[in-house]
């Protein structure tokens, strides 16, 4: 390996007069007095000036400071970091799609509308729901949309109600999404199995409660086995069940949320359906509903008549738009491609292999790491640092040491009900070799924690930067480059 170059900010290598791109000579008569009276810039002050060679080197070097799924296992629990098929990238960039304009008349974009309608249909079948909207741009956006749909449906019944119930194991976006929809959040405690406590639910489920937001499997990777009874309790009191589909990867082709009493749900295309995470997005969070909620879906809805597609804006009950245009269309194309290439059998295999891989890791690491909840795992397992704490080693140390082994750490920040969590989700696409690399590294680290904890405290040792001072970053924020004066 060659010695690593410390890559400056582009602004630090900028030099007056350089440029990487030029436009053709202006082919219309130039008017010097254009936009007279409008304040114009004298120049784009401090904007970079570099060559194309420098641009390419800069971004290539920066890219090499990232870990990614293309390099190895990325076992972030609840994030479903599976392999992203390359052909889907190529097809999403197809000029017929990429060049198409969102304000073009329906008859000019029949192909695009077919893509949307097809994926809606596939998602309905996979989730057991009656209709889907593809407008939400990400999972949290889907949650917000779903809660708005619930509110609209309850308002139509005569009472929007005040509260939303959310289990204490939930992802932070759930309470936040409910809040933006004008609901107050009430937390439901988990029982000793890590699942929703039925007695607590029954007590909390009053006629002031609009909905229960449930993640199933939950963030412990545990299936809510009482889901039918849970739905019944909520429905009996006139509430609706929202399912966060972040963990849909455990269920595809095995069981459908719509068949277990779920009224509204979202699916993360960037998790279950393999669209790349892109270092934090773009995602896509389609929302599925049962018949009762269909009239409230965001506009426009795609109508089909005799093989022709048209946008339907005439939806008086609609909650309105949640995003301009039609959602993250390029992401939607990728997800459609994924389902087409998998077929019905392959879609079932997503869940089968995701669950097998997770259980293989769980069994292999039991004993080395503490498992707070021993309930059966689905697509992920949640260990903790309880055993290692005795040697002064935390989940953070374990995670940073994994980096030295050339691997990505698990999720640590939640579920909040497991202190020192190590939440591991391998997904279905990992090979046994890569699973074993991870297991062996974790075992070696468990041993190091006992024998040589310092090596964990000071990890990582092989990276471009060491552990960074996050406290200083928040206390004295430097959020942009500025020219030294």
């Amino acid at each position, binding site marked *: 390996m060659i010695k690593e170059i410390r890559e400056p900010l582009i602004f630090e290598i900028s030099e007056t007069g350089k440029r990487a791109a030029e436009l053709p000579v202006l082919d219309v008569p130039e008017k010097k007095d254009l936009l007279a009276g409008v304040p114009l810039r004298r120049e784009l002050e401090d904007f*970079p000036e570099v060559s194309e060679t420098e641009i390419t080197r800069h971004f290539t070097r920066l890219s090499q400071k990232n870990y990614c799924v293309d390099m190895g296992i990325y076992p972030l629990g609840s994030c479903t970091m599976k392999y992203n098929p390359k052909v889907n*990238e190529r097809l999403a960039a197809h000029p017929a799609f990429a060049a198409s304009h969102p*304000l073009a008349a329906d008859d000019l974009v029949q192909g695009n509308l077919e893509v949307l309608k097809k994926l809606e249909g596939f998602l309905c079948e996979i989730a057991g729901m009656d209709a889907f909207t593809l407008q939400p741009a*990400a999972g949290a956006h889907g949650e917000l949309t779903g809660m708005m749909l619930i509110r609209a449906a309850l308002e139509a019944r005569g009472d929007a109600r005040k509260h939303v119930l959310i289990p204490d194991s939930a992802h932070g*976006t759930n309470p936040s999404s409910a809040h933006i929809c004008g609901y107050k959040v009430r937390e439901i405690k988990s029982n000793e199995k890590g699942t929703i406590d039925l007695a607590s639910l029954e007590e909390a489920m009053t006629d002031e409660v609009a909905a229960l937001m449930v993640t199933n499997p939950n963030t412990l990777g545990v299936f809510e086995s009482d889901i039918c009874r849970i739905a019944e309790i909520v429905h009996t009191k006139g509430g609706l069940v929202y399912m966060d589909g972040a963990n849909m990867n455990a269920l595809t082709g095995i069981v459908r949320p719509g068949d277990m009493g779920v009224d509204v749900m979202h699916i993360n295309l960037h998790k279950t359906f393999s669209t790349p995470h*892109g270092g934090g997005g773009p995602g896509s969070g389609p929302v599925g509903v049962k018949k009762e909620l269909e009239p409230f879906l965001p506009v426009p809805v795609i109508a089909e008549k005799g093989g022709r597609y048209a946008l339907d804006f005439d939806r008086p009950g609609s909650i309105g738009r949640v995003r301009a245009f039609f959602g993250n269309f390029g992401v939607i194309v990728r997800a459609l491609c994924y389902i087409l290439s998998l077929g019905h059998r392959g879609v079932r295999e997503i869940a089968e292999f995701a669950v097998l891989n997770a259980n293989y890791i769980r069994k292999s690491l039991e004993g080395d790491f503490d498992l707070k909840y021993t309930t059966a795992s689905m697509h992920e397992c949640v260990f903790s640092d309880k055993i290692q704490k005795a040697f002064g080693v935390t989940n953070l140390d374990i995670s940073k040491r994994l980096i030295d082994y050339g691997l990505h750490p698990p999720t640590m920040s939640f579920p909040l009900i497991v202190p020192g969590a190590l939440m591991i989700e391998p997904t279905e696409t990992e090979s046994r070799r890569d699973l074993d690399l991870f297991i062996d590294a974790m075992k070696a680290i468990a041993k190091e924690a006992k024998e040589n904890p310092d090596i964990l405290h000071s990890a990582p040792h092989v990276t471009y930067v060491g552990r960074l001072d*996050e406290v200083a970053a928040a206390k004295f924020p430097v959020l942009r480059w500025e020219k030294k004066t």
Partner: protein
Amino acid sequence: MGYLSLSDKDKKEMLARTGAGSIADLFCCIPEAVRLDRPLDLPAAQSELELVRTIDGIGRKNAYAGQLSFLGGGAYDHFIPTVVDYLSSRGEFVSPYTPYQPEISQGTLQVIFEYQTLICQLTGLDIANASLYDGSTGAAEAVLMAQRITNRDKVVVAASLHPQYRQVVRTYIKNLGIEAVEIGYGPDGRIDTAEIGRLVDDRTAALVFQSPNFFGVVEDVQALSGAAHAVKALSVAVVAEAVSLGLLEAPGKLGADIVTGEGQSLGLPPSFGGPYLGFMACKKEFLRQLPGRIAGQTVDKEGRRGFVLTLSTREQHIRRERATSNICTNQALCALRATIFMETLGKQGLREMAWHNAQKAAYAAGRLSAVPGVKMKFTGPVFNEFVLELPKPWAAVDAGLRAKGIVGGYGLEADYPGIGNAALVCVTELRTKDEIDRLVRALQEVVS
């Protein structure tokens, strides 16, 4: 399928280790009664070659591809240098998660830091976030942010804000007790200044306007900001056409407190409306109310510079229901593309691109409004779009142009009932003089 990596031997041995007798046993925690007892009703698996043919066939149903188009209105056709596609396709950028482990995410984090800097430079403001979903949700987040900052429950929104952005704002505020009042436009296409005094009052959290607005007209940002500030309301400038910032004075330098908008113009293809890039910048005193992720600079123990996600106590994973926004996944890869685009165009290139847009639009506006019966609807200054008033209903004109292979613009009647025979025409640097002349000739024939 080729994406699974376990051999039959692996499966057998791994199952044995789990202690389960079969794959089905792994799902025993799911009640029998709800388990799916049939295969999903989906098509059979397709090989890569079949998939390419299928998708190609669907793509071919988009007749738009062969048209000469002058559509704008929130999605713009701009030149994208090849390096943008090439570099942003690298697996190291495409396939990581959000950079929660900074030691192995310095690439993504440094890119976000550069992106935030570029957005600050473009908008003339102090700080920027790492991205939002798009321009419409950016506008909605800005409204919520203004309400938190001012503790006021009314926003005045320009009717000349993108109609779909206005709809999204309405959807977001509906359940939060915030009232939105619309402010109209005058004959110049700018916000009707006579209305400001009546509508913007001491209950107003923000005056929300777009510049260049949906009609392509550049607003008087300074005057609007002054009017908002006079009643201690915030000035929120929305920019749907980010390339305009290469030429027009930064809204932050003209008094805007929050600038948000759509970054699609900066290296993202129109792609039927997404994925796009919501950007947002504000004055530094509003830092704690800024939604979304932010990258910051710091050091490691050896004093080496590095970047981390910071100020996360604003965010949902820490603050839960009291977070500034519920946003989690954003548009990181789109922000990366915009960063490469802006750095490639650079100081001279972005200004040149903006200048070409303005020149070509001016040329087109001059020629088109000289067609008998056709005139400019508004008298205000425009950037790269303008509204034409036509002697015939837009539907007829559009059909006539379409017969000649031209998508001449976007009819405004549906979004602005009563506006008459009017269409929004956009001319970017990609349209050649010949293409503009072709539109002029075609329009002449259609309206005569």
